[in-house]
């Protein structure tokens, strides 16, 4: 069995198996809007491989992180209010 990692998504505690990328954790937590476009439209992962930047979120206070390229870590704080 994989180890469990605890993080928060918009302040809500979430537990996922270690090795989970943040985008997957967000999907598991039921988040469909990861960020907003310039025009205010909801955006979420498109390519899943680090190219499109549609999946950007704020991780530990750092904006514009690609959630599909970042592994969940213990105590991580993720926000989807960009």
């Amino acid at each position: 069995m994989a180890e469990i990692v605890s993080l928060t998504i918009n302040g809500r505690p979430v537990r996922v198996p270690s090795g989970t990328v943040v985008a997957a954790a967000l999907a598991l937590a039921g988040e469909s809007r990861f960020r907003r476009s310039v025009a205010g439209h909801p955006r979420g992962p498109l390519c899943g491989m680090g190219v499109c930047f549609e999946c950007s979120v704020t991780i530990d206070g750092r904006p514009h992180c690609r959630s599909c390229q970042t592994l969940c870590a213990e105590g991580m704080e993720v926000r989807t209010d960009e």
Partner: protein
Amino acid sequence: MYGCDVAVVGAGIVGAACASECARAGLSVIVFDRGPVGGGTTAAAMGHVVVMDDSEAQFALTSYSRRLWRDLAAELPAEVHYEACGTLWVAADEEEMAEARRKEEFCRVRGLRAEILDEAALREAEPNLRPGLRGGLLIPDDAVLYPPSAAMFFLGRAPQNKIEFRAGSEVRALNPDGGVILGDGTRISAGLTVNAAGCGSPDLTAGLPVKKRKGHLVVTHRYPGHIRHQIVELGYLKSAHSVSSDSVAFNVQPRANGQMLIGSSRQYGAEHPGVEFGILRRMLERAAMYLPDLGRLVAIRSWAGFRPATPDKLPFIGPSAGNQKIWLATGHEGLGITSSLATGRLLADMVLNRPSEIPVAPYSPARSLLEGKAHG
């Protein structure tokens, strides 16, 4: 079959401006491009509308064109993202500060606004620049815009019954009697042809001394307010002048949506169109010397493009030396976005025998044949 009065090869910002000015003067125009509007060098550019003063002729063309942009500003649609954010030339040391003062005086005596900033004023203008810079020069009337949309706007601005755009039309050769021969062999006749094919122009006009000068750019995610002006180092003048070796310079631009474009690099002899990480790294390290927080920001894309460069840093505008039916509007190197409007206007003035607002002789294609072409 008689196709049109003017056939323009190339729907980059220069070809689009020439086509637009001719069509607005009542001539019928067909524009050919192997790709879409503004998909060549125009799509790779930064879109800084900047007055430059390497030579009087360069100053005349860029300042005239900037004035035309300013006159047009109110008519530009939102997607052109035109913003008169000004240029901030940054001086790192006393030598560069002397250059800032020289430029300030140069502008002032010619009636353009320019303002010297001391160290404190520079920090106030751009708080994210590193401390310890000597000062700067603010040119408030320079601007930034999104070039492909500007090219689109030029074509759309002409009366629709006067202008036709043929996308996906490769031009194989220019017909010496006017007109073009397309890739599939179709001949379309025209009163005259304008070769505005940018880096492709020497393929259509043999012997034209236009060479590719490669440049890289990086665009960041959105950081509204991180910078407020187009910021350029005055060391740029030293590095951009070297025509032999590869060079990088600090040159950043704020976009209306909060993104930043980071440049710039210049390479001769580089033929591969892809991004080269060695020069990209040098360029970003240079930028981080001025904006220390840059390393903490997220870049989302990088790309490279080719500037169409001439030996004397001035474009070719006018009838070609060998054939009065084949005209040139090419060789704008790193200033084609800035000088597109003036190029279109001057070309149309010459075609229609109208008086022009600035002398056209310095840009005459015939100069490349003259002995001792000692411009600079």
